[in-house]
């Protein structure tokens, strides 16, 4: 197994379970299950035991590996600088081994099958990929400066579609030169990779790279931080040469143009850092720069912010597989309570998965009157234009 040489170096000290303040548990799967086995250290020790044949492949072992939300909190907070960067890589390598052995949970297998058969996890026809753009007149990519890449949740999930419309509309209002692939767009594969199907990921990545190359794409702007991460950090390994941006990077360019934004009603907003923009790509400032520039917004921070943010629980494939599941101790619900604690009217997000996870969590917490989830583009579009 890749990274097996670091497994025995975990001291099971547990720093990786926490944020830097030590306030509370910050690993979503440990928070939910509370057995040490579901913590980062637990996974390290179990993987070693598994390779040493001290424990066998089992559905329970697979559940433990697949309940990791790939949030990167452990990578951020493990106190061993010489191997911490590879903790999550080791967990993914463990999943890859399970894929090879055919021992993955049924729901993960369904996910891969759906990607193979339909091209998306929603099992919907690919021709519907542009349904989100209906009626808002978004141009198909020809030779514009940016290709706006939407991805599966933005294309097929109702909440994601709403966000995709907001982002596209806003970019149009700011007169950004961009186009979309519409029906021709394909899955970016980030979740495929993190779920352990590196072969399928490579195919998806290469196809996208080839398609972008043929179309002469030089700059891609993504709706989702997950796609941003895959295209920025993984695609170059397969020859990608285009520049990659998250949509907040583009919005930030317009924030000094004060005359574009109007309205002064006070709104208290707290920002939830998406793991793939924040911890995985160390960008904590772009979203805050935008929110701070919007008139009338009071930006308040939750205790756990930036590198300490508590993941929504939708990463690592869990958005689709739901292996992490719901319940009062699910991280999305804990996070909602945290946002309410700081008195925010709006929980601002910058990821379609976070948007959906938190909207569901607000309903489960019965707090729809107290707080709303809005993507950054939606906040600007609905409140300040």
């Amino acid at each position: 197994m890749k990274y097996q040489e670091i497994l025995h170096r975990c001291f099971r000290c547990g720093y990786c379970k926490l944020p830097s303040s030590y306030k509370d548990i910050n690993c979503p799967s440990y928070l939910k299950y509370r057995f040490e086995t579901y913590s980062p250290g637990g996974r390290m020790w179990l993987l070693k035991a598994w390779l040493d044949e001290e424990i066998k492949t089992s559905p329970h072992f697979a559940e433990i590996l697949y309940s990791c939300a790939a949030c990167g909190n452990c990578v951020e907070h493990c106190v061993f600088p010489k191997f911490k960067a590879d903790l999550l890589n080791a967990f993914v390598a463990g999943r890859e081994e399970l894929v090879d052995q055919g021992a993955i949970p049924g729901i993960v297998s369904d996910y891969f099958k759906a990607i193979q058969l339909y091209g998306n996890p929603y099992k919907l026809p690919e021709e519907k990929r542009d349904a989100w753009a209906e009626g808002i007149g978004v141009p198909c990519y020809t030779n514009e400066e940016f290709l706006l890449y939407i991805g599966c949740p933005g294309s097929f999930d109702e909440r994601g579609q709403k966000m995709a419309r907001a982002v596209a509309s806003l970019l149009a209002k700011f007169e950004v030169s961009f186009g979309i692939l519409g029906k021709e767009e394909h899955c970016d594969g980030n979740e495929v990779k993190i779920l352990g199907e590196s072969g399928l990921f490579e195919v998806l990545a290469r196809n996208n790279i080839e398609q972008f190359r043929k179309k002469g794409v030089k700059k891609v702007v993504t709706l989702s931080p997950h796609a941003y991460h895959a295209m920025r950090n993984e695609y170059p390994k397969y020859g990608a040469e285009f520049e990659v941006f998250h949509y907040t990077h583009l919005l930030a360019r317009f924030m000094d143009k004060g005359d574009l934004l109007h309205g002064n009603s006070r709104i208290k907003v707290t920002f939830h850092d998406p793991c793939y923009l924040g911890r995985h790509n160390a960008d904590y400032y772009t979203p805050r720069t935008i929110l701070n520039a919007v008139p009338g917004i009071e930006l308040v921070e939750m205790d756990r912010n930036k590198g300490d943010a508590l993941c929504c629980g939708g990463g690592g494939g869990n958005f689709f597989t739901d292996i992490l599941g719901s319940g009062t101790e699910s991280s999305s619900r804990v996070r909602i309570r945290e946002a309410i604690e700081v008195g925010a009217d709006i929980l601002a997000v910058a990821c379609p998965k976070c948007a959906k996870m938190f909207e569901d969590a607000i309903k489960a917490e019965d707090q729809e009157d107290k707080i709303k989830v809005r993507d950054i583009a939606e906040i600007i579009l609905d409140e300040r234009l």
Partner: protein
Amino acid sequence: MEKIYQELKKIVGDQYVSNQPEERFFYSRDGGTTEPCFPDFIVMPGSTEEVQKIVLLANERKIPITPMGAALVLSGLSRPLRGGIVVDMKRMDRILEVNEFSRFAVVEAGTSEGKLQAYLKKHHPSLKHSVPDAPPMATIGGNILIHGSGHLSALGGFHTEMLNGLEAVLPTGEIVRIGSCSVSPYWFSRAPLPDLAGLFLGWAGTTGIATKIAIKLYPDRPLNDIDIFVMEDADSVPDVIRRLSGTAVAEDITAIMTPVPEWASGFQMINVIYGAESKREQVLKRDLLRESVKKYIKDKVGGFMPLYSDMKGRFMEAPASQLVRFADVKKGGGFEYVGAIMPIEVFPDAYRKGLEIAERNGVTYSTGARIIGLGHTMMFFYAYAFNRADPIDVKKAQKALEETNEAALTIGGIPWKAEVPAQQGIIRRMDPNTFKLMGRIRQTLDPNGIMNPGNWEVPS
């Protein structure tokens, strides 16, 4: 077994009990060198009542129970030596009360040190508790019950001395309250009642399960500083420590002796941390410390190390995260230490014995001490790193640890949080009537012998 499993599920809910190989593997060991002992079940109660029901069930079925916090003692004390149920206490992590005026906090026993630390910082920034250098997941219960020590131990002694009271489930299932909370709504003190807390302190979970803990809090001063006195002559260290601690200025005094970096080998670095309300107080305290060891500075035996302010933060970090990194010096993921409680006067002997054992066994070592009270005693530690992936290296560290426990006893100290062989070394030297009394107490409290059996016993 299946029936017990179903009954445990009824008590804590399906989600919080396991008999699966994965959990049984992980909970059979800790990060140290001791051999694994497999539990049959791992259970995570969420309330005192659930703990009580688990204990009653264990009594009825005569199944051993081992309480566990974060299993960070490293000496294997939360391994279930005779199998049975491991009770992971970390779901009981609520902070129940902070009394700012009388300076105490009441927490559930599974509350982590880190959680209380962060809570106080946010909600009661004028107060702090004595944070051990254990990783922040360590539980308040686990730490107090083993006579832990920490960043306020020069000021307040062992953490057991900071204990105001507790709630515990006895091995027969009764819930008891110890200290003022047994009489009054305030958890303010153990005095003036007969001090029953001793029934639970230092017993390695063999006399009951603590469910709530009240501990003393201390002022968190706005100004904090560190002075490091460096010297090479181990024989003078006891007197230097006696003088520095005698000023009653320090919150924490630790000594560190480590062979790496190479230039530091052979040095004794005595770190003195103190807080102050004002600049004037800070200067006065610094002067008092300097004055106390003037003689040694004048004789050029030692001196205070120049420190830049950004370096100071690292030395004052609580808990000191660099300590755990010792586990990776051999890229091996492990270290274990003998912590021995000793009088300060045996420091030179303790230091030399440690070096000798480490060199003889060819183990990578680090040694040091934390001073308890005004130099009243110290916890002297000998840490040995090992490569977990190399069984021979693990055995080497194990042997060095065993020899160190023996050496600590020979020079008049007592191994702390002692693993089973060290417990037996202590018992061999203990006044027989004391050990008999321990046995009688256990027999009375735990007639079925279910609580963490195998600890504090003579091998049969």
